[in-house]
């Protein structure tokens, strides 16, 4: 078998048992299985999701910190008022 013939009959990504001529004339869909998914796309989705969850976690802590800052501010204002009141008495 010549190299050219072997290349024509080699099983490729388009499916087993098809020749280069067949693949040039018809497109056959993969039926189910893991070939339906692109590995690159899944990898990017996984890494993007990791970063999103970590960022959401950090953002929730930032929000809690802001809430604490507001409560401290309110307490400080109340203390200042109380001090001013006691100083005026």
């Amino acid at each position, binding site marked *: 078998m010549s190299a050219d013939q072997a290349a024509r009959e080699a099983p490729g990504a388009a499916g087993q048992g098809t020749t280069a001529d067949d693949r040039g004339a018809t497109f056959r869909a993969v039926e*189910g*299985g*893991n070939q*339906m*998914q692109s*590995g*690159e796309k*899944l*990898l990017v*989705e*996984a*890494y993007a*999701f*990791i970063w999103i*969850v*970590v960022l959401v*976690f950090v953002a929730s*802590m930032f929000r*809690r*910190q802001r809430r*604490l800052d507001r*409560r*401290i501010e*309110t*307490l400080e*204002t*109340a*203390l200042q*008022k*109380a001090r001013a009141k006691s100083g005026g008495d």
Partner: protein
Amino acid sequence: MATSEALAAGTKVETASSRSRGDVAFYTVLALCAAAFLITIHVIFFKAPVESTMGIVQKIFYFHVPIAYSMYVGAAACFVGSAGYLARGTRGWDAFARAGAECAVAMGVLVLVTGALWGAKAWGVYWTWDPRLTTALLSVLIYVAYVVLRAFAGDGDSERKFAAALGVLGAANLPIIHYSVQKWGGNHPKVITSGGGGLKHPDMKLALMLGFLTFTLLAVVLIWTRVRIELAAARLGEAEEEALELGVGEE
């Protein structure tokens, strides 16, 4: 009188200095975590070879397994904090348990989603009721229940004790997740084993080790930050109550 004032001043100085030491340690761990992330990403994408049968999607593994491990770290923190709170009843232990549970939920969600994306390529389905997947989902739901309980059930002593009991009991599922593959089989890969594991290339092993280091540091940073916020909130709550008792800020 003068002695007690001097003692009080001394305690204040000591507290401030130990707090600043704590800050230095915290920012050091944070910087190490950031550096570890950069190095790990570099090794995963530029040094570790592409796996021969699965292709590039196998690189999810270098984060998926360390994330699962850091979920255990969060769950272990929740267990230790809960047991400590039940034994001692102090806010520090409670804060540690709460921080651990939140970390376990975040990491658990990441494990389930990254595993599902890997499974879509490896098995052709996002989810299957495999023993390890099912027990991992159960564990995540337990910690979600803990977090929801703490968020909506108030912050009284009885609620904290109830949550602590959940934190202790919830940890019982962790060894079951770990040994489920050995005991009940299933589809989940068994690449990491006591006999050296199934990673055949040294750069693959390096990428996984760095992943473990990075996500351990990330879990420590997240738990530490959350504990600091929780303790600050508890101190502030006490100060607000005291202020109200003294009649400050009533109007």
